[in-house]
């Protein structure tokens, strides 16, 4: 049973009446409800951003310590059957297509291993016939003894497929709704299985039922009202927590980046907006992992360190085979923070935080 997320017009009605007093109340409350989240996401909260940041920092450090997890994505394939207006991989975009062989994928992973990564995120476009569960299972079995954590961000799967990959050694599943606004969702998903909003929003439930210890949700910022998107994320998170109390959750807030296809974001989401969104989610859910990827520029990622995010990607390439070739042709999007993993870790350490590469162990899941 998928969570029922209200229409955005209704979510905006929760946001609209919020006042400065509501924001102050939310800032001092021990346990926040969805209406507090609405207040923090509202325009009224903008003048309290420095206070929200301080509170968010306090909670983040209290809960996660002075640590930041580090991971890298590994793009397996950019074949895709979907046509998503915003994505470089969209079917029909004239980019060089490539699916790594298992040997190539392992070679890419080993480059990341040599660089010190112990947590990698396996990413692919959605093309189940080209890259299906058999492939994912095979690459997982090859990598599982090298890496402490192996996450996937691939096409939504069925529960028995998630179960297979869990047994093979996948430790976490990320699947982003992109936008919780059904109207916009239908507008930007032009073809392919991804057009099915309900199947997609039910995906974290299927992964939860398969027993995953970590599940990631997210919204692609630039498609719909980010404030309502934040509320929807809060509601989805709340729903998942009630259903899967033994699972940890993460939230990602990818902002649309320049990509093949020349899609212009439908709405503008500034760095200030993004930070408000992250602080709000942190105050709403002190335990949730918040991810800030290399989509964002170094300056912003450095500034946000310790304020709300708990996990950073580093040294990323979003093109299949890019770590081996050094080429970015066929990438999903161009990245904003071009520093190497060592440079990112040095920045984390310089700010008084421990860059954590290994935060899991193979032995938990044998």
């Amino acid at each position, binding site marked *: 049973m998928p969570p029922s997320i209200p229409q955005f017009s209704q979510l905006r009605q929760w946001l609209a009446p919020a006042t400065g*007093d*509501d924001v*102050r*109340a939310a*800032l*001092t*409350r021990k*346990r926040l*409800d969805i*209406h507090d989240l609405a207040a923090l996401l509202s325009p009224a909260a903008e003048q309290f*951003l*420095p*206070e929200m*940041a*301080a*509170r*968010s*920092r*306090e909670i983040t450090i209290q809960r996660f310590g002075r640590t930041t997890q580090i991971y890298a994505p590994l793009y397996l394939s950019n074949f895709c059957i979907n046509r998503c207006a915003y994505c470089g991989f969209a079917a029909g975009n004239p980019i060089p297509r490539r699916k790594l062989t298992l040997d190539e994928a392992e070679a890419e992973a080993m480059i990341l291993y040599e660089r010190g990564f112990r947590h990698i995120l396996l990413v692919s476009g959605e093309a189940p016939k080209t890259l299906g569960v058999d492939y994912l299972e095979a690459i997982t079995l090859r990598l599982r003894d090298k890496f402490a954590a192996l996450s996937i961000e691939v096409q939504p799967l069925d529960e028995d497929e998630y179960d297979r990959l869990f047994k093979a050694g996948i430790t976490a599943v990320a699947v982003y709704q992109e936008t919780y606004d059904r109207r916009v969702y239908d507008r930007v998903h032009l073809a392919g299985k991804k057009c099915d909003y309900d199947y997609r929003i039910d995906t974290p439930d299927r992964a939860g039922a398969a027993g995953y210890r970590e599940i990631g949700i997210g919204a692609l910022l630039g498609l719909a009202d980010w404030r309502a998107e934040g509320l929807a994320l809060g509601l989805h998170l709340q729903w998942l*927590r*009630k*259903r899967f*109390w033994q699972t940890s959750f993460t939230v990602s807030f990818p902002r649309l980046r320049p990509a093949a296809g020349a899609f212009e974001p439908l709405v503008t989401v*500034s*760095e*200030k907006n993004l*930070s408000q969104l992250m602080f709000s989610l942190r105050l709403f859910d002190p335990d949730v992992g918040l991810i800030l990827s290399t989509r964002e520029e170094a*300056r*912003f990622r*450095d*500034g*946000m360190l310790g*304020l709300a995010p708990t996990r950073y990607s580093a040294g990323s390439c979003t093109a299949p085979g890019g770590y081996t070739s050094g080429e970015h042709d066929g990438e999903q999007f161009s990245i904003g923070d071009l520093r190497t993993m060592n440079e990112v870790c040095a920045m984390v350490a310089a700010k008084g935080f421990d860059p954590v590469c290994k935060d899991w162990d193979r032995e938990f899941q044998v």
Partner: protein
Amino acid sequence: MLSIADTSFSSRLFVGTGKFASSSIMRQAVEASGSEMVTVALRRVDLENPADDIMTALDLNKIHFLPNTSGARNAAEAIRLAHLARAASGTSWLKLEVTPDPRTLLPDPVDTLKATEELVREGFTVLPYINADPILALRLQDVGAAAVMPLASPIGTNQGIRTTMQVEIIIAQARVPVVLDAGIGAPSHAAQAMEMGADAVLVNTALAVAGDPVRMARAFKAAVEAGREAFEAGLGRQSKTASASSPLSGMVTADLNFIQA
């Protein structure tokens, strides 16, 4: 409205029937409380006897009869009692109490989980009485408990809510209704439980041993309604005057100059 296992209750006050000076006072107190869910210790009633004192004192058209296994020391005893109750009364609802220690009557988490699992499998609607242990509450929910009934403080102590932190976690996490049970000694305790977001409270000793049980029942009724109203109104949100007078301008801030305009 409160709903447990698809049954709706307009009152969030559950009452117990033990310790009253007479069945007649118990009946009047139950009526005054407005309760629609009344629990009866199986060991105190003779369900086979149509003239049983306690059972005849209850208007079963108005109230939901919830037999309990008070006195059971382990899962096997509790399950046996449950079978007897269902056979005699026809109800498959059960307040599960497994209390191996006769002094504190604190519930046994291991056998409570075991008995819940078995009774749910047999089709019972099980409301287990537990210590305020959030993980146990979730484990019980996972095996099919219809609600969980964490204790506020040891039964009969009238100490109020001494398990606040754990109860708050249970309320925040549980999918099933949370009924605060045991130790609620005064209407203010009941109101506090409702303000915290408990779905209902169960009260017995506080009524039974009050100077005037019927008036006390009325007081609890009012307190539960007030507490629930406060919870639904959004407690704390009304404290605007107080937060205006407390200088929030002194709050800590973080430097956000790195953000690009």
